[in-house]
């Protein structure tokens, strides 16, 4: 009994810090409609700055001053970020906002590495609170008790701020209807900056408060952001009280989950989220969101199958690729195979995103399932490569069928966050279920069959798979199914009124996409000869997104180009600099701001505009139907 009480108290203490991080994200989303992926990075930054300050400031006053000053300093950085970056992308699609703030996360990771070094840091104990209080015979850290009190205090303070000040009233009004608030003459710019600064302050404060409890590490950002997403989604985006309730639920779930089901404690959290979202698609206290951002369909020009001329060019490109083994050595061919696998992975996501309008933030799940499926088939059943290359995509398909069933019930930003959550589930299973997956040690010895073991043969194998995948997915875009899928993306109301089921169509698209990603993962396992949990991690999902973004979301298969450019660039970057994440993050941010339609898409737009004007001589304005009769 005593153990349960103490565990309950630990859960409440964890809930407080989780709430601090999550409520900031929720407030920011409520007003600006941006899901701030960088929130975890600011949480981590708060902890690092607080560590440095408390090393220099002495005594109780110094400690608390250090914590508060750290939060304030980080909040200032947040304000600068809002003014320089976010203001440019408030009208961009959600996906781009998520990507840009993820780019910031990458940059912060490398900057933290540069400033504070690679090792974990252990902060000071809170002066006067370093002891423990005995509860039912078991010790509970005094600092935990402070945190338990602090959570509700912050909730109360935020409530007063939101309900008793003019600023708070404006924030709540903007959460309800920001266009109306703007129409009333409120300066939106400063309101947004203020809200973002407050949100970042709370995140940094939450991070800083952690230093007496845990070591300050580089993994703090991504590990907290997954939990924060779960809390915010369960609580309802934009709701502070919802975030508090959800934080308590999740923290207690974790506290007791470790006692009851130590192996799958990480999975538990995401399962609860999936269940809550299916029952209440906008969380405990949230409301359905109207983002009003244009869908991808509106920016897309009509797609056409390749013309004969284009087909010849494509055939020439494939022939050129097939001749590569004559030119390249074994290193070059392994890079080539890696690029071709990236092509398969990227087009699988592009089918879902461009044709289906489903912005997945967790595509790594299906890539990883394919990789693990193939690797386990080899390790357990001793299957040959040919059979394992079938098991991989089937594993991807199975994952997509299970996760997709939940995901297609949602849309927009909730869809993106749920896909991310499922990818994190798969990651945590691979990470925690050591007996099967080998955990962090991965699975080794996944080698291709003899005939495919030479670099040239394996390269040709991946080339064949990539060509078939691209062609099949392209075919699907123009098949009756592709028409239905695009119809659902462009106008769900109209699609349903002509007999097309949104959920069923998107579910099938999700499954197709997962299967192709699984195939890419299976090939990847054989290319590397081994597989580790990081193929399932968030950065893998981001890789795919950036490839699609580079290629152009509004194209059918632009991501082929995106995958080639991105894979070559990142391999080169890894060898050229230690700060690859800093550069990559900056590149992502730059891409989002400079090419909102992707490189191929934007270039096509640049070329198509003048071309169309040239084709249609002046005077031929937009076509208007004017039937002959009845007009003068």
């Amino acid at each position, binding site marked *: 009994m005593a153990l349960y009480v103490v565990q309950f108290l630990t859960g409440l203490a964890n809930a407080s810090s989780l709430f601090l991080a999550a409520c900031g994200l929720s407030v920011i989303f409520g007003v600006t409609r941006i899901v701030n992926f960088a929130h975890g990075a600011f949480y981590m930054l708060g902890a690092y700055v607080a560590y440095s300050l408390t090393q220099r400031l002495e005594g109780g006053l110094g400690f608390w001053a250090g914590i508060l000053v750290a939060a304030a300093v980080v909040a200032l950085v947040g304000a600068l970020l809002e003014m320089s970056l976010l203001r440019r992308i408030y009208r961009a699609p959600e996906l781009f906002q998520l990507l840009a703030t993820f780019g910031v996360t990458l940059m912060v990771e490398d900057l933290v590495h540069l400033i504070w070094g690679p090792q974990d840091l252990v902060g000071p104990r809170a002066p006067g609170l370093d002891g423990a209080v005995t509860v039912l015979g078991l010790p509970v850290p005094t600092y935990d008790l402070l945190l338990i009190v602090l959570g509700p205090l912050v909730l109360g303070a935020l409530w007063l701020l939101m309900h008793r000040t003019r600023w708070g009233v404006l924030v709540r009004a903007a959460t309800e209807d920001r266009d109306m608030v703007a129409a009333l003459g409120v300066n939106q710019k400063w309101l947004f900056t203020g809200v973002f600064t407050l949100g970042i302050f709370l995140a940094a404060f939450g991070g800083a408060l952690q230093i007496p409890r845990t070591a300050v590490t580089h993994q703090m950002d991504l590990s907290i952001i997954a939990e924060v997403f779960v809390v915010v989604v369960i609580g309802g985006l934009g709701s502070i009280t919802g975030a508090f309730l959800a934080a308590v639920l999740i923290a207690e779930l974790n506290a007791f989950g470790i006692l009851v089901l130590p192996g799958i404690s990480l999975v538990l959290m995401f399962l609860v989220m999936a269940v809550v979202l299916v029952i209440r698609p906008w969380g405990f206290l949230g409301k359905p969101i109207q983002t009003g951002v244009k869908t991808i369909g509106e920016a897309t020009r009509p797609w056409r199958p390749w013309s004969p001329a284009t087909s010849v060019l494509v055939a020439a490109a494939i022939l050129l690729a097939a001749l590569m083994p004559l030119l390249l050595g074994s290193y070059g061919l392994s890079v080539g195979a890696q690029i071709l696998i990236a092509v398969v992975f990227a087009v699988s996501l592009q089918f879902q995103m461009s044709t289906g309008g489903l912005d997945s933030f967790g595509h790594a799940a299906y890539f990883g399932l394919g990789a693990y499926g193939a690797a386990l088939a080899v390790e357990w059943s001793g299957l040959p490569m040919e059979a394992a290359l079938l098991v991989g995509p089937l594993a991807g398909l199975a994952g997509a069928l299970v996760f997709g069933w939940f995901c297609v019930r949602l849309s927009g930003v909730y869809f993106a966050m749920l896909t991310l959550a499922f990818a994190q589930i798969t990651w945590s299973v691979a990470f925690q279920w050591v007996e099967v997956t080998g955990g962090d040690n991965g699975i080794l010895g996944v080698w291709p069959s003899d005939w495919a073991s030479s670099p040239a043969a394996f390269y040709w194998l991946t080339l064949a798979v990539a060509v078939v995948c691209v062609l099949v997915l392209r075919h699907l875009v*123009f098949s009756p199914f592709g028409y*239905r899928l695009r119809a659902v993306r*462009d106008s769900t109301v109209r699609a349903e*009124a*002509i*007999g097309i089921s949104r959920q069923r169509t998107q579910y099938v698209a999700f499954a197709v996409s997962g299967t192709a990603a699984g195939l890419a993962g299976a090939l990847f396992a054989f290319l590397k000869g081994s597989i580790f949990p990081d193929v399932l991690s968030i950065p893998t999902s981001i890789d795919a997104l950036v490839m699609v973004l580079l290629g152009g979301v509004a194209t059918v298969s632009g991501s082929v180009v995106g995958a080639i450019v991105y894979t070559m660039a990142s391999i080169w970057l890894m060898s050229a600099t230690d700060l690859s994440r800093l550069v990559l993050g900056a590149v992502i941010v730059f891409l989002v701001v400079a090419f909102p339609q992707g490189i191929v898409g934007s270039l096509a737009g640049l070329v198509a505009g003048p071309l169309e004007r040239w084709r249609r001589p002046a005077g031929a304005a937009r076509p208007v*139907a004017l039937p002959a009769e009845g*007009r003068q």
Partner: protein
Amino acid sequence: MTNALLEVEHLSKSYGGVHAVEDVSFRLFAGEMLALIGPNGAGKSTCFNMVGGQIPVGAGRIRITGRDTIGLSPRQIFRLGVGRTFQVAQVFKSMTVRENVETVFASRDGGLGFLGRAGSAHRTAAEEVLALTGMAEFAKRPCADMAYGDVKRLELAMALANDPKLLLMDEPAAGMAPLERVELMALTARIARERQIGVLFTEHDMDVVFAHADRMMVLNRGRLIAEGAPETVRRDPQVRAVYLGEGLVYDQAAAARRADA
């Protein structure tokens, strides 16, 4: 008569105590143009969306070709032979005009629809429908480049592609130029008569209504206040009161002036 195309009985819907539609009953027969008119907020669109399946029915009964449609999704209602247009046109903006119509045919192909090309499979059928609605020359235009009036016409083409028995048109001519309105409704009326399609439509433009409706119904605050031939409805004092006002404000103002004098 029991062979009505659309039978609506005691249809009601309320939103949190506000009765948007209350006890509405009517019938629509094949080949008939039935206009539903009324001031803003009278419940016309709510009525429409309940018949089309976009909004769940509060209470009452709807039968289309004798089949009860309560609880059916818009998809299932579509399959009963119902085509519809929306108040704000809903088309597929990333596609060409012809592809929009081809999609309607593609939706009727069974199975997963992975095989074959939707474009070539349904080209002839789509072009026939476009020709019928006078859109043949715009077949290859991107939908996003079309004027709004033509988008509305495309919606009609998409509704007709299903070879419907019943057409639901919610303000088909809203946002169009006056001449275009008249043409669109003349076209609809002609097709409806030729193909024996029953048309239920709402419209604010009374010229359009009186020119083409065989019968009309007037809705006010969720209730049907008049129904019958256009000429009868036009003379109905209650309808005149709803549309022109009771003159109370004018009377009061006049009384005040008299008192001053």
